[in-house]
């Protein structure tokens, strides 16, 4: 609690108080305690499953909302809010301070559930007198219940977004506008889906088939959350494996990876500047990371050679785009990235390799990667020269625009640099620290065959002084997208 800013403490305290009021004021003798207990136990069990270490891989990644939402439709406001409390208190918390986070989550969820249930009652979705035979389970009720149910989900989602934003503002000191931007809209779709599942649970709960039938609705939803978590896990593993492809090159030629990551980053920045959608940006980033993967096919002795290359060796090195293309051709999703790997050494004037394509015949992705590649080669330190300042590199690129590079891509890079700046050190990473000591890949930090293209110094070799031991910012960045206070909740669109 001590680490929290005073504003955040006040915020948590307020919400806890409000939640307490919500729960305690409405409970009386008419509360359907059996349903409350059953739902609370059910929700707690769902959340506990994610905590159990043995079963952790079976649980969903975030809170499992269909149960609280079913409570919204089934119970009066205070009782529904009470249902959410034990589960939220017991659920998995990823970060410290755990106690405060649990408390916050429970209070937040209780208030949101209370708001949803209140809305549902006000709009007469449930017969107003609790305990009286409800309209939910009747055959003709369903289409008429949809409207109040939708409003209830909106209220639930709105309150959650509001409170999430509030804690972001007070605890992380994020600007009000940034904190709330997109929070509600992003959460709306998953909450609506969970809301429909909750509604179906409520309908079956009130039907003659009773609570057991209602449980069956939750099973597919639970599995769906689980699969989604698996998907995220597998996706992360896949990202690591993509980098492992580069790491394989790194065994032969030690500088490659820091360079690859930085080129990937520059390419992604340029893609954003060129107005590409997120999927293409991601593919372009991977294209940048993998552009030199074909160097795996170049004999180690040539890659590590000190001193000038013979024409024969130069020809061997110039084969690397084709090797790279051959290597990744089995990876379906890369699509345009494969073309970028094959053509990243083409020049717009047609004097590049391997095919001597000119102008627009060079694939767009390849033109982007060529610029990013040359830029990073110039701005990073090599064994044979120091890094040039960003401004000098940009000037050089602009000089070569039209001959070696596509002017539009150079302009995109310049614009991106103006917006975001360039901080090459953060992308170096700790990979391979364990390997370099073990294999024959040691002791060549000074090595590097160099075939610098005329003018801009698009590189093919060289020793890079990228410090190891700094965590890959890209890896962290992916997880860092989730605001720290917002628990990872099932569906993110």
């Amino acid at each position: 609690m001590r680490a929290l800013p005073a504003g955040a403490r006040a915020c948590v305290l307020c919400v806890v108080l409000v939640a307490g009021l919500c729960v305690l004021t409405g409970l009386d003798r008419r509360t359907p305690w059996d349903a409350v207990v059953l739902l609370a136990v059910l929700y707690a069990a769902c959340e506990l499953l994610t905590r159990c270490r043995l079963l952790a891989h079976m649980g969903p990644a975030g809170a499992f909302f269909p149960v609280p939402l079913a409570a919204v439709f089934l119970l009066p406001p205070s009782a529904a809010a009470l249902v959410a409390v034990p589960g939220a208190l017991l659920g998995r918390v990823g970060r410290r301070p755990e106690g405060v986070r649990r408390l916050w989550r429970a209070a937040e969820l209780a208030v949101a559930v209370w708001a949803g249930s209140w809305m549902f009652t006000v709009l007469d979705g449930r017969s107003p007198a609790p305990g009286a035979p409800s309209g939910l389970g009747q055959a003709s009720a369903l289409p008429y219940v949809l409207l109040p149910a939708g409003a209830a989900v909106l209220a639930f989602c709105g309150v959650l977004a509001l409170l999430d934003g509030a804690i972001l503002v007070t605890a992380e000191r994020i600007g009000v506008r940034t904190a709330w931007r997109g929070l509600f809209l992003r959460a709306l779709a998953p909450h609506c889906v969970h809301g429909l599942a909750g509604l179906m649970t409520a309908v079956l709960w009130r039907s003659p088939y009773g609570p057991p039938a209602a449980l069956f609705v939750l099973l597919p939803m639970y599995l769906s959350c689980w699969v989604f978590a698996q998907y995220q896990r597998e996706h992360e593993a896949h990202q690591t494996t993509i980098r492992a492809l580069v790491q394989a090159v790194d065994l032969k030629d030690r500088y490659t990876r820091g360079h690859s990551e930085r080129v990937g980053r520059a390419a992604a920045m340029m893609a954003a500047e060129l107005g590409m959608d997120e999927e293409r940006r991601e593919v372009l980033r991977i294209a940048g990371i993998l552009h030199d993967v074909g160097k795996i096919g170049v004999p180690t002795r040539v890659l590590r050679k000190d001193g000038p290359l013979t024409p024969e060796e130069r020809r061997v090195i110039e084969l690397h785009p084709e090797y790279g293309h051959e290597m990744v051709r089995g990876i379906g999703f890369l699509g345009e990235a494969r073309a970028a790997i094959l053509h990243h050494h083409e020049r717009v004037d047609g004097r590049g390799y391997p095919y001597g394509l000119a102008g627009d015949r060079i694939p767009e992705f390849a033109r982007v990667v060529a610029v990013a590649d040359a830029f990073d080669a110039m701005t990073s330190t090599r064994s044979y020269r120091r890094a040039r300042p960003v401004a000098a590199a940009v000037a050089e690129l602009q000089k070569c625009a039209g001959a070696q590079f596509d002017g539009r891509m150079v302009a995109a890079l310049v614009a991106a640099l103006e917006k975001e700046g360039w901080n090459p050190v953060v992308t170096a990473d700790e990979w391979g620290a364990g390997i370099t000591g073990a294999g024959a890949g040691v002791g060549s930090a000074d090595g590097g065959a160099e075939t610098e293209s005329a003018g801009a110094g698009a590189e093919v070799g060289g020793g890079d002084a990228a410090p190891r031991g700094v965590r890959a910012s890209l890896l962290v960045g992916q997880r860092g997208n989730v605001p720290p206070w917002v628990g990872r909740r099932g569906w993110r669109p």
Partner: protein
Amino acid sequence: MCGGCAVAWGWSERARLRGLGLAAVVRGAALLLVLVAVGSTLRHGPQQPGIALAFAALICTGELTHRTGSDTAGHAHAPLSTAGALAYALLGHCAGIPTTHGVLQVVAVSAGALAVGSAPQLLHARTRTPIHPRNRTPLRHRLHTSGPRLDQPVRRVLTVAFAAACFQPLYNSGVVENRVGQGPGLALLLLVLLALTGLCEAVLAAALTKARTGHPYGPLLRDEVRALRGVGAAVCASGVVIALAVAVAGLWALPVICVPLLLTQLSFRRYAEVRATYRQTIASLARSTEIAGYTLPGHARRVAALAEAVGRELGLSGEQLTLLEYAALMHDIGQLSLVDPVPAGATASLPVADQRRIALLGGAVVRQTGVPTEVADVVERQADPYREQPLTARIVRTVNAYVDLSGECGGGPGGPLGALERLRSGTGHDYQSEVVESLARVLARGVALPPPG
């Protein structure tokens, strides 16, 4: 490289014919059933056409939103359309009014909707991948590969027919109403019924896969039953939920319940896609040693295919087979750390100390690739004496040695028989004799190996 090992022909002729015979009988039965069902439905006119249409639309939607991507074990995930068909089979009431459709109408409706829903996909697949005449596979091999695609609808029709045949006569005769009533008992009864249906489907699916591939039955059945725990449970529960929800709230329940289920289906699909991409990436990583000139083209994939076959023969299944496949694909990756390639990449003929060094280097590389650590363990210990190895590492070691010694395509000195002989003489220390013998059985039966390159 010789082309002879591109497709090594099927297992012994008699077993193959028996397998094809079973598959033909099952397919024929399904076709006959569908024809009879459609004929009878058309002759008597469909009962309660509104309900039939709604469910047909549901099945169609489910089919249209799922792509034919099937995971490694060949399970195609179309949970929504399967659940919809099962729910129609288990539908006794609609908004409180008893339903009148019979078993044959269930089969006709679900088969028709399935055909309509999957038609665009089939057309798309045909127009998108024109096969060059030179690359066309021989008919015998095509039968192999077209199997899973044909098996899917056959299995679906038979499963739905089974569920309907179990439920509809019982329910319509009033036995269920008298014994169980309209209460929680009915929900449980439906679930038990669907669990039974799932088991029957697993038995059928494993038999069909065995007929197609010749893999041993036990592990296949185990795989199918294991799949039942995940997707299967979701499908069964969804089927029950749809049937009950429609019974309570009428056809309005269909869209309400289907949106969440559609999302379940989408998440399954995304999961399958990322898994497929992941496999492709691992295969590319495995190819890096080939591009770098350390191993012969296709070596890693050949070892992986043979290792998988041996693993199945030894009763491995599911996750273990995946681990084995990854380890086999990446077993040579440590060679990347060598400045000069080993001649022809044949590590089996190197001194033991070098083999172990390469294995250790490989393990260190694999550890950082994001695959499960078990894979790295296997790669690391592939050169150890077999008594110190886990089973998967024994398999990788034996299969790799066989592929190296037999000269990749069986054209080396001594050929396959000579290589097996040498493996057998090493069973005291290096290779486990059970693994060698099951390798021999797999080879005798024949296994489809990827071509070089």
